[in-house]
Structure formats: structure tokens, C-alpha cells
């Protein structure tokens, strides 16, 4: 699709336009407000799909497409630099996909101040679009942090219990404390290089000691967001106390900011430090995976089960990213996106029964399948997706992560693989407890999903299965950026090898031999041509 107009500024500004329109509607006209906000969010989603259609997925010349530049602070050489690659467009689309779903799901559950709620949702959408498309470190930090303000307010104002205040505090302070280190790191980068333009910084080789300092300062901030285990306590609290839409956004997009940041900034900018810290990251991630999987088994709160399983999955993503293989990185991205749909779908399911019965404790439920068959189908599909059953979107990501992780450390991978068993255990057990068995006598209402809930839940379930079978529609777009990251990590130049060969050849080779670019013994890159001949 050949378009002369740059779609990215339109996509970024679309939520702002919606915000202005909704701001002008009086909060007394509730039905108009709801309809307009839904229409606007769907329009924004459709606009953001333009990125998908007009992105050139095999363009190796410019990594960041739709790029544009607006001057900002001339004094210290900063400017609004935007551009998206094959990874970030999917996060933008995921965000814009989840916003209408958030709005439909809070159609009746948000009882007061609906207008402000929608405004904050659109504000988050706007800020997240910026986070995923900005190519300047300081602006990335600014937008990364500014998401805290609306999220803090959403948890605090529309949260369900009194503990929400504690949760929002924890969410805010953990993230803020983590990311001030990143601010220092960014300023230090600026101090060394005189620029914070990401594309310029890719050409800079930092000294090893500097890399270690900078990598660590960035990691402090991303580790809180992923979250890895000693820093994870904010996450279950925030998820449980937030309203359903807040949990959906937290699990769907905000959790991905950590791994996205690692992939976008830590790995390409500081390859030496990445190698240096890989054992540490793998150790922490494996501990996190096992710990949070085991913790999930013990939870009594429905939202906490999903929150802790999110911790486990996000740490699997970290293992994939730090496997230093093409497949592992691809798998990490795929699992992030799939988890964005699966976990938000599960949170929506929890929201549905919370709206009906006003509790999230597992012991009050039982035998829901008897009178909620439609709900049961969706819940089981999403639970199976959560444990990575073949045929669902999570399977692709998990399998690629395991393929890649085997190369870097088979023992760590063995431990991480236990998450498959654990996730099967907690998912099936959860289904068993709330769906099957005798009907809990405490249940007073017997009503299946209504039309509104059916619409978005079936959509989620459909997408989970769709992407399980037709992953190429997404994975093809990762090819260039993840190859790029991989090659930067291994000091291998992208243009040399990749432009000549098709993605199918490379993917096929990757799966057979994940370390295809580097000979492990000598540490030297193998000529790809040779590799190709060997394959035949």
C-alpha cells in the first residue's frame, strides 16, 4: 500500500482529538458519552491498523519507518523524534485494541464519573502510543513515567476496595523509584555523547565499564516493570485493586513496557553489558518463574492467580530475550503480544463474574458451567491459552523461547520449563474449582453472559486461536527488528546477510540450529552462505 501521507502522527494525535471531543460532552448525557467514547476508541483502533497495512516489513534500509522529527529544546539538542519498527506497531495496535474493550467492559461496572474515567483511558492510550513510537531517550523516559499519573488515579479512584489506596501508592512509588535510575543513566548518556537520539546512539560504542553502569541503571527501571521477583509485590496489589479496565491495561500493555524497554534499549545499546549480565538475568528470571508459578498455586483471589501467572510469563519473556538467539527474541515478542490478549481476556472474565457476584474469592464459586455455558467456553479457552496449549497463541511464543533458551543455558531452561507444568496445574485447577463440580450454594443469580459481554469475550477467544494458527501475520513483522537486535548483540551486520535471503530460509535454519550466526567454540561469525549450503 503506497501512501504518501505519514500515518504515524495521525495515529498519535487521534486519542487527543477523541479526548477533546469527549471533554466537550456533558457528563449528564451518559448514554451519549458512552456511545461516543466507544465510537472514538474504535476509530482510533482502525486508524492504528493503518500502521500494520502500510508498514514495509522487508525494508532493511531504515529500521524505523514513518519517522518524523519536530524540534524541541534546541539548547540541549533534543527533539521529538518518532518512528516505529515491526515490534512497536503491534504494541500500538494492542493498546488501541484494548481501549475499546476496556470501555465496553466498564459499560456498567463504572458507576460514577464515567466521563473522567474515559478521559483517563484515552490519556493512557495517547501516552502509550508515544512511549512505543518515540525515538528519543529523554522523551521515552518522560512518557514512560507519565503513564503513572492516569494509572495511579484510575486505581485509586475507581478501584474496588479500601486497599486500593495502598496498592496505588505501591504501584506509583515502586515504578518511580526504579525509573529515576534510568533518568540518571539517560543524563549520563547525554553527558558522554551529547545526544539522546536513539538512532544516533546505536552507532556509539560505549566503554565496557560505562555500559555496565548504564545497563544496570536501565535495568533497575525495567525490572520493576517486568516485574522480576524481589520487585514484584506491587503487581498483584495493583492488579487486584484496580477496576477491570485498569487490570486489563496493566496486564495487557503496561507490563510489557519492561521487556519492551530491555529489547529496545538495553540490548542494542549495551551489548557488552548484556552479555556480562546475562547469567544474572537468567538466574533471577528462573527464580521468578518458579517462585511465581508456585505462588500462583496458593492464591485464593481470582485476580491474584492471573497476576502471579503474568509474573511467570513475563519472566519467561525475559529468558527468551536474554537467550541471545533470533528465535528466542522472536518468541519473547510473540509471547508478550499473546499474553497481552490472554491475560487481559482472563481479567475480563474475572470482571464479568465480579460484576455479578461482587467477590473475587475462589471459594465462593463452583459449578458455573451449569448455568453459564457460554462463559465456560471462553474461560476454558483462555485458561488453556494461559498454559500454552498448542493451537493457542501462547504456544508459539513459549516454544520459541524454549528453543532459544536451550542454546544459552540448558539447565536454566530446564527449570523454566517447569512453568509449563505449573501453569497447567494452576490453570486446570482454577477451571476445575470455579467452573465444574457442584453449584456453590452461595450463588444467588443464574445468568449467562449478555450480548455486550459475549461480543468482546468471544472476540478475545477468537483472536487467541486465530494467532495460534496464523502467527505469520504477526511474526513476519518481527523479522527485521529482531534480526537487528540479534546482530547488534553478536556484532554482526544486518545488511550483509539478511537482505539476500528470505525469512523462510532463515527461520527454518534458526529452528534447526539456533546459534546459526556464531560458532560457539570460536566465537566467530559463520558466513551465512556456508550455513545455507550446509543446510542443503
Amino acid at each position, binding site marked *: 500500500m503506497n501512501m504518501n501521507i505519514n500515518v504515524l502522527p495521525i495515529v498519535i494525535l487521534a486519542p487527543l482529538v477523541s479526548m477533546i471531543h469527549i471533554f466537550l460532552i456533558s457528563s449528564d448525557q451518559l448514554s451519549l458519552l458512552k456511545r461516543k467514547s466507544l465510537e472514538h476508541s474504535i476509530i482510533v483502533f482502525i486508524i492504528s491498523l493503518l500502521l500494520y497495512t502500510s508498514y514495509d516489513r522487508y525494508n532493511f534500509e531504515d529500521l524505523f519507518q514513518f519517522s518524523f522529527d519536530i524540534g*524541541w*529544546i534546541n539548547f540541549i539538542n533534543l527533539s521529538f523524534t518518532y518512528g516505529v519498527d515491526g515490534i512497536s506497531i503491534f504494541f500500538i495496535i494492542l493498546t488501541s485494541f484494548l481501549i475499546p474493550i476496556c470501555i465496553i467492559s466498564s459499560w456498567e461496572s463504572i458507576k460514577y464519573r464515567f466521563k473522567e474515567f474515559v478521559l483517563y483511558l484515552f490519556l493512557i492510550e495517547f501516552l502509550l502510543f508515544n512511549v512505543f513510537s518515540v525515538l528519543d531517550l529523554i522523551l521515552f523516559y518522560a512518557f514512560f513515567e507519565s503513564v503513572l499519573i492516569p494509572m495511579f488515579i484510575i486505581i485509586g479512584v475507581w478501584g474496588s476496595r479500601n486497599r486500593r489506596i495502598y496498592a496505588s501508592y505501591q504501584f506509583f512509588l515502586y515504578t518511580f523509584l526504579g525509573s529515576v535510575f534510568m533518568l540518571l543513566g539517560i543524563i549520563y548518556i547525554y553527558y558522554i555523547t551529547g545526544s539522546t537520539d536513539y538512532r544516533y546512539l546505536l552507532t556509539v560504542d560505549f566503554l565496557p565499564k560505562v555500559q555496565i553502569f548504564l545497563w544496570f541503571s536501565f535495568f533497575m527501571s525495567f525490572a520493576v516493570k517486568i516485574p522480576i521477583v524481589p520487585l514484584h509485590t506491587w503487581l498483584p496489589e495493583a492488579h487486584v485493586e484496580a477496576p477491570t479496565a485498569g487490570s486489563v491495561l496493566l496486564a495487557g500493555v503496561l507490563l510489557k513496557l519492561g521487556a519492551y524497554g530491555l529489547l529496545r534499549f538495553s540490548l542494542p545499546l549495551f551489548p557488552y553489558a548484556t552479555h556480562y549480565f546475562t547469567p544474572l538475568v537468567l538466574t533471577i528470571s528462573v527464580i521468578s518463574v518458579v517462585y511465581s508459578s508456585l505462588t500462583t498455586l496458593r492464591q485464593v483471589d481470582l485476580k491474584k492467580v492471573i497476576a502471579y501467572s503474568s509474573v511467570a510469563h513475563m519472566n519467561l519473556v525475559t529468558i527468551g530475550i536474554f537467550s541471545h538467539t533470533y528465535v528466542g527474541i522472536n518468541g519473547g515478542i510473540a509471547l508478550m503480544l499473546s499474553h497481552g490478549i490472554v491475560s487481559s481476556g482472563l481479567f475480563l472474565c474475572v470482571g464479568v463474574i465480579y460484576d455479578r457476584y461482587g467477590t473475587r474469592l475462589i471459594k465462593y464459586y463452583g459449578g458455573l458451567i451449569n448455568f453459564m455455558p457460554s462463559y465456560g467456553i471462553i474461560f476454558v479457552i483462555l485458561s488453556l491459552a494461559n498454559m500454552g496449549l498448542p493451537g493457542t497463541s501462547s504456544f508459539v511464543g513459549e516454544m520459541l523461547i524454549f528453543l532459544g533458551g536451550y542454546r544459552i543455558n540448558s539447565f536454566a531452561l530446564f527449570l523454566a520449563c517447569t512453568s509449563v507444568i505449573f501453569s497447567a496445574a494452576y490453570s486446570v485447577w482454577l477451571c476445575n474449582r470455579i467452573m465444574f463440580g457442584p453449584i456453590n450454594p452461595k450463588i444467588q443469580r443464574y445468568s449467562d453472559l449478555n450480548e455486550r459481554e459475549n461480543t468482546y469475550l468471544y472476540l478475545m477467544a477468537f483472536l487467541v486461536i486465530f494467532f495460534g494458527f496464523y502467527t505469520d501475520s504477526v511474526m513476519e513483522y518481527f523479522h527485521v527488528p529482531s534480526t537487528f537486535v540479534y546482530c547488534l548483540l553478536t556484532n554482526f551486520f544486518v545488511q550483509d546477510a539478511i537482505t539476500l535471503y528470505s525469512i523462510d530460509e532463515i527461520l527454518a535454519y534458526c529452528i534447526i540450529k539456533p546459534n546459526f550466526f556464531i560458532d560457539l567454540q570460536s566465537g566467530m561469525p559463520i558466513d551465512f552462505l556456508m550455513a545455507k549450503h550446509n543446510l542443503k
Partner: protein
Amino acid sequence: MNFLNDLIFFLPEIYMCFGLMFVLINGVYVQKYSSIATESIKYSSKYTLGMLFPLLALLFFQPKYDSALINALFINNQVAFFSKLFVVVLFLSLSISFLSYYKSESSNLNFGYEYPVLMLLALVGMFFLISSNDFLILFLGIELQSLSLYVLAASKKNTITSLESGLKYFVLGAFSSGIILFGISFLYGSTGMTNFNDLRYFLLNLDTLEESTFYICLISFSFILVGLLFKLPAAPFHSWAPDVYTGSPTAITAFFSIIPKIAIFTVLIKLVYTIFLCFNQYWSFFLLACSIASFVIGSLGALYNTNLKRLMAYGTINHIGFMLLALSTVSVEGVQASLFYLTIYLTLNLNFFTILLSFRKIDDKRVLFSIADFSTLFYKEPVIAVLLIFNLFSMAGIPPLSGFFSKFYVVYCSMNSGMIFASLFAVLVSVISCFYYIRMVKISMFEYENNKSVHANTKPVSDDFSFVIVVTSLFNLLLFINPNFLLSICYSISHNLFL
């Protein structure tokens, strides 16, 4: 005549003196012949506001070239021009919001016509202080300003806290003025000079100085510096600030937490960066120590405070720490960053105090006192509550609000001059200070269940308040789009300082 020629440069000051005489005489006249006792404050506040617009015009039409006036007692340059402009603009916005404040406060019979007059008198003092080029004028300016402020602090005659704060302010303020005077007299005794230019050239080559003269100059400089830091207030010379801020009437707290800071800060920058630049290895360390102390005291002191004004006083000390951190870098960028910080911080402060003044408690019609009084604000006044929380987030330094850029620029400057641990400390402290700012956000946004709102919601916030609140909030929210404008002004000021 040289003298008469120089008077052209003093048109704003002369105009203000005549103006305040007029307001004073008018106030006396109205109070004597009016049947309503509170009529006089209404007139004098309106006249004060009215005379500020011609003052702005006079400032703009003042000759712009750099010149030393009246035997080099005064100096006229870009630094002086911008500081005066900033003083007048902020005082103008405060006066606008005071119109409604006086109206609602007039039933208490506390406020007479003297208050605008005293504020104008303090303003004259600040003008002299800003354009001073001689230690005598500097001292006279400080005294004129401080004397008016002492009276203002004690102005609520029927409350004991106001009297207490006035007394405390007077005793400690006089003490610090004494210290400054002591330093000046030492300097005069050893060198025989009080003029800034003379001293600057005298101290330019330290090698030729005798050792005793050098040390006496250093000691006298330390005295002057301590006195100025006392007035700012920077820790560890801050002890008067929380008490005085708490005790004074809220409008007066707003006045002297905002306006005098500009004048004192300008003078501080002028002294350390021009005359005493030769002592930079001493004062940079000293300012750094003060800034660290301010960080610690400002953030920890505010942590468990529930009194709004006391909390803001500690917050001010914390913010002063950032400005001093920027100054201690000994660089043009440092001055630029500190001026940038000052501008943004004072605007935020103005916004906060205007919002504070615009609400009244339901029971006793007094201004909000404790942070708990903000509860349920979001459910009663959603727009102002949202502007308030954006202000608080901005003070806490959350991007993309203006407070973030000021902090960012300061940290950037200190990183640039190699002070990595100081900048690390600064950002960690900003996390601690974030805690008490978001506690206020929590109270105004999240608490609706107890549902006993203490602030008045019977009538909407008046136009005067809304105007100031909206203008300052727009500054806060939209600075993100183009901070270049403000930065370039600060840059030209800081460059001008070294010429």
C-alpha cells in the same frame, strides 16, 4: 546633570513610591469618612492592582542598555530587568487573586487598607535590592523589604499564631540582617570598599592580596552568604521558615513564599557569580553542603506533616536545595538551570496557593488548614481538583509536567560538572518528596467514603481565582510543548551576568 539623567532609570521606583502614597492617603481618607469599616481594603486593593499595569509599561519602556547609575550605586542590566519583570508579573497575579480573598476575609475585620501598601513597600525594597550595585544599597533594600514583611507576618492581630510568627520572623530576620551587616563591615574595614565593581576588580587577582586581607574577605563573604541563605531559606538556616509560614495569614504566606525569593535569589547569584567568583572553590562546596542539607530536611520534615502551610514550607526548602545544587556547579548552565527552576517553582507555588485560597471551610469560613481538608475535593470541584493534582505531580517531578523539566535540567547540569553522587542523591530525594505530594493527591482524589467535605461548595470559585489558576496551570501543563522559550531567557540572563 548626571543625577537627573540617571533618574530616568528610576521611573518605576518613583512611580511606585508615589502610587503607594496615594493608596495610603486614599485608604486613610476612606476609612475616616466611610460608614463601612471594611470599605478601605476594597479600594486600596483595587488601586494597587490598577497601578501595577502602568508599572509593567514603565518597566518595558525603561532604557535597556547596561549602565551603572548614581556613582555606581545602582546597576541597570538584563538581570535586573527580568527579575523586576518577574516580580511584578507574579505580584500582579497574586493581587488579582487577593481581590476575592480580601472580599471573603473582610468580615473578619482583620484586613485594613495597609496590606497592599505594605506589599508595595516591600516591592520597592526588592527593586532596590535587585538593582543594587553597592553593599549599602543591598542592605537598605533587604531591610526595607524585610521590615514590611515582619509587619505583614504579624498582621492578623487577633490570632496568637500570627503574632508569634511575626515576632519570630522579626527576631530571626533582624539577626540575619545583623550577620549580613557584620560581613559588610568586615569587608569595608579590610578593603575600604563597598562597591561591587571595585570589589570585583580588587578580588580579581587573589595572588596580589595579603594573606590577612584574603582571609578577612573570605570570612566577611561567608557572613554575607549565610545571611542571604537565611533569608531564602536554605537548610541549615531554615528554622524560622516552617513556623512563620504556618502562623501567618495564608495570603501573606503566599506573598512571602513567592515574591521575595526572586530578589534574594538574584542577589545571591550576583554576589557569588561576580564579586566573589574568585572564592568559587569555597562557596561551591558550601552551597553543595547547604543543598544536601536542604534535601534532607526539606523532604524528611514534610513527610509526616499534616499542616498544609508547614508542608509547603518544607517543600520550599527542598526546592531551594535543587536551586543551590545547580548554583554549586560554577557554570553558566548552572545559573541558567537555577533560574529556570526558580521560575517554574514559583509559578507552581503561585498556582498551589491560589487554589488553596480559593476554598473556604464550611464551618468557620476559614482557609483550608490541614491536608485532610482537601478530602472529597475531586467529587465537589473536579476541574480544580485535577489542576491541583497536576500541580502536585509537577512539584513531585513527574513528567511531562513543568516540574520535571526544571528538575531534569538541574540534574543534567550537576551531572555535566561531574557531581554524580549529588545528582543521585537529588533524584532519590525527589522520590521521597514524591511521597508527600501524592499523599495530597490521594486525599483530594480517593477519599469519598467518609464524605464529610470540609471545604465550601455552596458557590463556585470566583473569576479572579479561576483566571490565575487557569493561567498558571496552563503554564504547568503546556511548558512541555516548548520549554525553549523560557530556557533561552534564562540563558541570556545568566550570560548577561558575566559580562
